[in-house]
Each structure stands twice: as C-alpha cells, then as structure tokens.
C-alpha cells in the first residue's frame, strides 16, 4: 500500500489521463470476435476433459482483454490493479473453498 499521503498524489496535477487510441479498441474488438468464433467452434469438437478447459481459457482471455484495454486497467494505477486482483482472489476463495468441501466429501466412507 502506498505510504504517501492522499493529497500529494494530486499536487503535480500533470499526471495526465491516458487516452487509449481507437485503433487499440478495433484490434481488441476483432480479437474478441475471433475468440467467440473459436470457442463456439471448439465446443463442437470432441475433446473430452479439454472441452471445458478450452472454453474457460478462451473466456478468460476475452475477459482479460476487456479488462486490460476496454476498462483501461493496463493504463491504470497500481491500486486499480490491486482491486481487480482482490476481486478475482476472493472469487476464487469462495469457489475454491466451497468446492473443496464438495470434492473431499467423497473421500472416506460417508
């Protein structure tokens, strides 16, 4: 966590807002469309256990692209990145620890 005080950050004033160029947006848009096509295509293949893995991997890639570029996180402060990370982490705690109970219920004899 930053030790500097709240106001000092704003004194400089110059800390100009990063404006993302539309070209980047267009590139991301196409990447997302390709991702959508790829994930639909992959779901029609017989890949066994890899089907959900691929679907989730593509979904995560798309989500990361949106977060980084459309939501400007790539150009944002560390605090914003930390916030996103905290959100993902707590989500994983909720899912992971709940699932851990369900998975380990099958161990042992009851």
């Amino acid at each position, binding site marked *: 966590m930053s030790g500097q005080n709240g106001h000092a950050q704003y004194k400089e004033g110059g800390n100009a807002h990063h404006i993302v160029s539309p070209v980047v947006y267009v590139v991301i848009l196409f990447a997302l469309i390709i991702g959508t096509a790829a994930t639909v295509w992959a779901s029609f293949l017989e890949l066994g256990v890899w089907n959900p893995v691929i679907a989730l991997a593509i979904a995560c890639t798309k989500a990361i692209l949106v977060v980084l570029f459309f939501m400007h996180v790539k150009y944002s402060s560390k605090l914003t990145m930390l916030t996103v990370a905290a*959100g993902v982490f707590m989500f994983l705690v909720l899912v992971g620890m709940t699932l*851990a109970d369900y998975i380990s*219920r099958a161990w042992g004899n009851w």
Partner: protein
Amino acid sequence: MSATIVSLPDQSTARIPKMNYLSKENGLLSWLLTGDHKRIAILYLISLSFFFFIGGALAGLIRLELLTPQADLMATDTYNKVFTMHGVIMIFFFLVPSVPATLGNFLIPMMIGAKDLALPKINLLSWYLYVAGGLLAIYTMAAGGVDTGWTFTTPLSTHYVNTNVLTTGLAAFIAGFSSIFTGLNFIVTIHKMRAPGMTWFRLPLFVWAHYAASILMVLATPVVAIAIVLIALERTIGIGVFDPTKGGDPLLFQHLFWFYSHPAVYIMILPGMGVISEVISTFSRKRVFGYTAVAFSSVAIAVFGFFVWAHHMFIMGISNYAVLVFSLLTMLVAVPSAIKIFNWTFTLYKGSITFETPMLYTFGFMGLFTIGGLTGVFLGTSGTDIHLTETYFIVAHFHFVMVGGMLMAFLAGIHFWWPKMTGRMYPEKISQLAAVVTFIGFNFTFFPQFILGTLGMPRRYASYPPEFQILNVFSTAGATILGVGYLLPVLYLVWSLKYGAVAGNNPWQATGLEWQTQSPPLTENFTSTPIMDHEAYDYEWLERQKEKEVASV
C-alpha cells in the same frame, strides 16, 4: 486543575459556536437531503436507536417467555416470530451499521482531515436504503411476522413456512446494499481523501479498523444478497438450486449464507475495536501499545475472517477434511483478537489513567470480549463444537461478543464523542452508574446461558425441561437490569442536549484531528485543510501545541 486535563470552559461565558453543522441550515428537508456526513451520522444514530429499542423489546419478550419452562406467555409460533425478528432487526438494522454508520460516518472524514466522505450522495442513499429496509422489516412484523430464524435455513424458508419470508429477505437485501455503500464510501475516502501528511501509519486505529471492516462489507455482503435472491426465486417460481427434492443441495445455501454471515460478525466487532483503541489511548494519555500490531491485526482479522465460514457447519455433514481446514483457520483468526486485547492492556502500562464513562465501558468491553472470544475457541474447536453448537452456549458466546463487546464499544464511543457531536457534555456520575449497571446486568443475563448451553439446552426453544428453569430465571432477572442500563443513557443523553455543560473543542485532551476543531464542527469540518505533522496519539505534540497557544495569548 491538573497539567494534562484542561478545565472545561467557564460555564458563564461558554458558548456553543454559532456556526456549526447543526445550525447551518434548518428544517426537516435540510436534514433529509443533506450530503453532510455528520448530519447523516445523526440521522443514522436516531434511526439505529429506534431499531435497537424495537429489537430490545423483542429480546425482553423472549426472556419473559423463558421465565417458565412451558410456552405460556405466547404460543410457540409467536415465540418463533419474536426471536426471528429480534435477530433480523438486531443484526441487519443495529449491529452491522451501528458503529460504522454513526461514529464512522461522523469521524472518519474528520480523523483523516477531509471535508466529507468521498461520495456524499451515496452516503445519503445508503441511509435511505437502511430506512427502507428497516421499514420493510417493521411492515413484516405488522403483517404477521416471519418464523425462519434470522439464518433463513433452507428448505424451511423456501418450502415449509407460509410467513413473510420474501419481505424479510428483501429487507435484509436492501440493508445489505446500504452496508455495501457505506463500506465502499469508507474505502474510497480512506484511500483518496487523506489530508497532507496523513500517511497510512499516522491514521488513528479507529480508521484502520473501519478500513478492515469495509473490506468485509464490500466483499462478503453480495454473496448473501445472491443467496437471498435464490431463496426468493425458489419461493416464488420454484427454481431448484437449494431444494433437495429437485436435486439441489441445501448445504450450498449454508455455504453462501455463512460466507457472508461469518465475516459479518467481524464487520460488527472491528469498528467497535477501533473505538476501544481511541478511548483507551486517550484516557491513559498514552500512545497505543504496538500501534502497527494493532493496525495489522485488524487487517488480519478481516483477511482470515473470509476463510473460516464453514465452522458454522461442523455438524451438518460437510467433509471431515474441510472441517479440519476450517477449524485450523478459525484458530488462526483468534490470535489477532488476543493480540489486540493484550496490546490494549499494555497501553495502560505507565499511563496516567482516568476513569471517565467511556473508559468504564472500555473496561467492560475488554472483560466481556475476552470471555466472548475465548468461548469462540470452544466452538471453533471441532470436537467440542459437536456438543456446544446450536445450544445456549452459542447464544451466550454471540451475545458476549456482540452485546458485551460491540454494544459496550458503541456506548463507549457515543459517550466519548458526544461532546464533539453535540457540543455538550453528558452528565458524568449517572453515566458511570449506567456503565456499571450495564456490566452487571449483562453478566447476570448471559453468563447463566453458558451453563445452560453446556447442559445442552437448545436455542430457539419456547419451552424447555424444568431443570433448566433456575438458570433461565437468573438470565431473565439480569435482562431487566440490562434493560435499565440501556434506558438510562437515552434519558440523560437527550437531557444533555439542552442542559449538558458546554464541552469546548477538546474536553478529553485527545490527539485526533477531530478534536482540533470546534465542537460541534463546521459543515466543512475544518476552517482550512489541516496538515498532519505528527504521529497518531502523540500526546507530547499536544502539550507543545497547548504551550504555544498559551504563549500566543
């Protein structure tokens, strides 16, 4: 008069400053549409007290019913509704918002040297949400009540009761969003609105505690919100997420519910701990022992608090291995609380202690919270939890932490900052009496319940085997004393609004920024942005400050 405690201003000349946040505007609308965090805090204080006394009246009914082993005062059905509403009102409409929404709202901007919270409109919105939720809860009571218990256990709440589960759920849902917005506001304010020189490690511990609690509010509350939504959908259109007859797992509801409701107890207690840190430092005139340890223990409680929820489910048939993990993590979360208790104790060491009312409440807090915390370990230990859970032991433990801990801290804080909020002192002698009465009444009420729990008396029973009666009579008798202890402050605090001695800026000679401005403060809090040039709880700085002032006069 002594060297450290300055005298109150001479009563004949003392005046409440003409310009202050209370006098700035008049009329009901100026309150209902205000963006001023201090006015919103007062609105909260009034509405919270209202709900506290409704919840308290319900508690009185519960204790009266339990005076005899038979369900004779009311039918079991009525009793079930009474304890459900007691739980819902006390938890969602008193404990969760209590310290943060009143004292936190009032003080956080002042403590960090800001003019207001970052999002004043959201702050007002969260008060309106709170009131809307509260009115819905009251409506539920008028419309026949609800008898699921505040835990909304499925499938009871979805398929087996015909009472107002939907309105109660909606009330809790709305109150949840009120709490989310409060927490969100605090986090943003603490990050972005600190005055020049106010570094993280110069923040008062009150602010640290609220920061930790806010993280919990923001991350945990939405999970119970979605659980309530699913219950509502299950009741209305009959979806099958928790319904075992359709293949759902009712334990999943327990997971989602406790993912919020366990951190919720830290949401309730952490701000109280913040109050204790401030009070104990001020009245021993000493920096809090191990400032960093206390600050980090707040954060540690918040973080570990997320990993322990399933200790509410030890006997429900979750995996034994999950029980191991959750039990171990529960032990870890107990440690920061122990650290806090000892650090507060050693704050007294070599201090110069005075025993004003807030300090008495603080001593009460330390004793009762120690008992409450240690009995929590009984329940976190998986083996003894089997015997003690779902009995009056749980009830006693929870009330020791929440009423003995949280409510004592709330009252300590209200008394401590009363001069700042109103500009007037509360009457000292009678308030000391109230503190002592509360402490005695509390122990009478809830200590017997530990024994009842060990004996195995289940909670939420309208009738019970006769051999439990004597302890229940003790408990009910204690509750009447406790009731007196809670009524007294209302009377004398209201009295003091008009007749209390004028307090002056800094009656306690405390170091926080909130004390370095007039009482009651201006709407903008400070005449100009303060600059923090010293550590928190720096009493030597305060001394130097006063010398300078004397010299300049």
